[in-house]
């Protein structure tokens, strides 16, 4: 008993010493980290190489920029590297920056259009395999430019441009004018059966100067416009703003936003309606052996702005406005459907997934023919709109 106790403690001490000898493995002091705020993936000039751009935060400058001005370093540091694969390209950064790259706070992943058209699956593999990268980073596709170009823009509001892009995406998602897709959503759609991925589209635009201000020489403002549409893992095209909302209606991701309708009294003068609540559902049906997709949209809103002189208190006016609104929504949806079905032939709405959920047996039969069936699917719309409030005044 006594002997075993002694033996026990000796073992403990020896093992503890062994442990402490090995040292500290995953320890990394804050000042030795290169905080990656954004990543961009582009096609390198060489055909089989990728070029990866990182945006590293320079914390000292983020907090208090050098007072001397001009000579101060920038709050972020953008660098590009090429390699045969994602991690191959990343590996070289340490030798440049002297700091260990730390991805856990990465906000955005920008995929250059060229790279997106070639296929993104290899990148997604790295992004989901890496233990630091979170599945909640946004995925956007740079429209018309290289992703690296997006990371180079200088923000006026935020010290770190990536943070601005991130809040821009959040704001746009909130206003239902862009699809907020993070790695998690993207991978889910990419690997899911009967659904194809989408991503927000980001582009550089001219800053709108206040009147009298100097016109921007350079395109130096990012904006989130439209949606990148993928087939499998390859970018096939873009949806514009109304089409994007059409897509979001179907996906049930409209939260808030403004619908501008023509005034019943004066076509030129619009009435703005504010969306307060909306839901969308896809319900496939087999009618006489033929697949019909039914889309049900329910929308509720308020009267936001009335630029015409129409008196909303008059009976029937609200009804007319509701109908107008319905028409607008239907148009948006039709536009999106047309683009996706006829032009890109890619099932970004997840019609196939919805069929597989509701008619698993039938789905197994049509699965192989799905891409052929999809462009010619009959889609029915059932949009119900409602105007609840008219704001602080009724009419004046």
């Amino acid at each position, binding site marked *: 008993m006594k002997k075993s106790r002694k033996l026990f403690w000796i073992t403990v001490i020896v093992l503890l010493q062994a442990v402490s000898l090995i040292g500290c493995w995953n*320890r990394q*002091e804050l000042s030795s980290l290169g905080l990656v705020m954004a990543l961009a993936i582009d096609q390198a000039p060489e055909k089989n190489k990728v070029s990866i751009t990182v945006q590293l935060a320079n*914390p000292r400058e983020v907090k208090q920029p050098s007072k001397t001005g001009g000579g101060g370093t920038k709050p972020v540091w953008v660098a590009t590297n090429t390699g045969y694969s994602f991690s191959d390209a990343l590996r070289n950064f340490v030798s440049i920056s002297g700091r260990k790259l730390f991805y856990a706070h990465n906000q955005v992943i920008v995929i250059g259009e060229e790279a997106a058209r070639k296929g993104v699956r290899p990148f997604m593999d790295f992004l989901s395999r890496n233990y630091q990268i979170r599945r909640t980073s946004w995925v956007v596709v740079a429209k018309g430019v290289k992703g690296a170009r997006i990371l180079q823009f200088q923000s006026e509001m935020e010290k770190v441009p990536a943070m601005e892009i991130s809040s821009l995406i959040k704001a746009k998602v909130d206003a239902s004018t862009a699809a907020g897709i993070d790695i998690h959503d993207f991978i889910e759609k990419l690997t899911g059966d009967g659904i194809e991925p989408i991503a927000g589209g980001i582009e550089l635009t001219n800053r709108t100067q206040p009147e009298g201000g100097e016109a921007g020489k350079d395109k130096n403002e990012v904006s989130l416009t439209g949606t990148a549409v993928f087939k499998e893992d390859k970018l096939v095209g873009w949806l514009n703003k109304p089409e994007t909302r059409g897509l979001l209606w179907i996906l049930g991701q409209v939260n808030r936003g403004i619908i501008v309708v023509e005034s019943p009294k004066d076509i030129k003068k619009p009435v703005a309606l504010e969306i307060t609540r909306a839901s969308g559902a896809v319900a496939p049906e087999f009618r006489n052996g033929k697949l019909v997709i039914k889309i049900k949209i329910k929308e509720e809103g308020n009267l936001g702005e009335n630029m015409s002189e129409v008196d909303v208190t008059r009976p029937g006016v609200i009804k007319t406005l509701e109908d107008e609104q319905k028409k607008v929504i239907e148009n948006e949806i039709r536009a999106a459907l047309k683009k996706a079905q006829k032009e890109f032939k890619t099932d970004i709405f997840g019609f196939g997934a919805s069929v597989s959920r509701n008619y698993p047996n039938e789905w197994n039969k049509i699965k192989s023919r799905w891409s052929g069936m999809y462009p010619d699917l009959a889609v029915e719309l059932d949009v119900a709109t409602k105007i609840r409030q008219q704001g602080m005044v009724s009419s004046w």
Partner: protein
Amino acid sequence: MTKSLSRLFRAWKRKKSRTSASVSAELTANLTYLQEALGSSTDVVIRQFTVGSAQPVKAALAFIDGLADNVMINESIMKPLMLEMRMVADGLSKKDILTVIKDKVISMGQLREVDNLSAMLDGMLSGDTVLMLDGYSSALLFGTRGWESRGVEEPLTEAVVRGPREGFTETLRTNTSLLRRKIKNPLLRFEVLTLGRQTRTGICIAYIKDLADEKIVSEVRKRLERIDVDSILESGYIEEFIEDAPLSPFATVGNTEKPDVAAAKMLEGRVAILVDGTPFALTVPYLFVESIQTSEDYYTRTFFATLIRWIRIIALTSTALLPAVYIALLTFHQEMIPTQLLLSMAASAEGVPFPAFVQAFFMGLVFEILREAGIRMPRPVGQAVSIVGALVIGQAAVAAGLVLPSMVIVVAFTGITEFIVATQIESVTLFRIFVTGLAAVLGFYGILLATLALLIHVLTLRSFGVPFMSPLASGSIWDLKDVFLRVPKWAMLTRPQAIPTNNRLRQKPLQYPRPPSGKKKD
């Protein structure tokens, strides 16, 4: 070395077996003994006189000046012996004098007859007065204890806003009286024993006979009787001898300076040990949960008391784990820090050359030094030290780029919260060092390891047979009524079941206050 030690040990044993002589019939022999025993100490007073008129008997009164009450000696002993004795002593045979003195002359409450010299000496040294008569082989001890002592004051520790303000004093007798005043139950028992060869300190085991488990009381008695030491100056001296886990950083014996706390604990079936010469009483068995309970919890209303208890739990957890979590976050799990915060922390980390653990260690050390300095310094200076220390050193360390600003916040907060659960300061401080060290090596995994090690350790502890962690682990779920909650008084039906007791129910059930039942008619 071992040889000389064992020789010393044998000598110690021999000393103990020395039997003391009995009181001699010759007064001079007794006086010689006293003189030999006490030497020429100036505070020893020996007054020789004669008793009786017809057949005067030589007598001597001995006491220690300052310990015995002079007025009492003059009025109740000397006066009767010298004046009134004459009236009753006529025709008294020499044999009866002692009985007469005992039964008829001395007007004192406390009186006992001893025939043992060392008992006589012990009595004298505790403030009693000895009367020795020539021709009698026994002496009388009069209870004349009365010395200058600190009054019953508000204790410095365990301050309360609401609740009794009196605290124990350094006098054992006063302390027992304070307890007796709280519990006027005849079953309240005080058992006295004397410990310490040099100090001869009075120790008192206090318990309520019906409530305290006899096994625990006898265990306390047994452990106390086993103690054979030179001196006992404070209850801490005996605490270390009766602990169940002497090598644990956790105390398994509680202490309190307040009679109401001691009484409440005795009313839950615990045993209190009072030690002469210190205002700190020990209470056993002591459970971990007692450290998050204070007397005031039971004097304020239930909701607030529960809230405060939770605050204490949070404070205890954070003072133990906060630096460790902070270091783990800073050096292992940076992904857990919100992005904006991380950026600003990284900004201040630029240019700080020391690893986070070194910073934490350094700041923690500074804090402990300041704390100790603040306690030891004379009070007015002490305050200045702590404020200057906290403000200046923290501020300067940040400005000089030695530590992160957030590190100062963490360390300062840890230091403050430490005081909320004051009874666990020692164990928490030790554990904090342990867990911070492991967190610096293994991050959150290290914290987990340290916590598990701590749990395994505390779960093995027992205090006088009661598992230290009950009722948190092992024991009745109903005991939790007084751990995470402080249920209203009328719902606290039973005493804690963790402490063995013969009398489980504490009060009449269903005493939820109700409005008067009869409807008033106007």
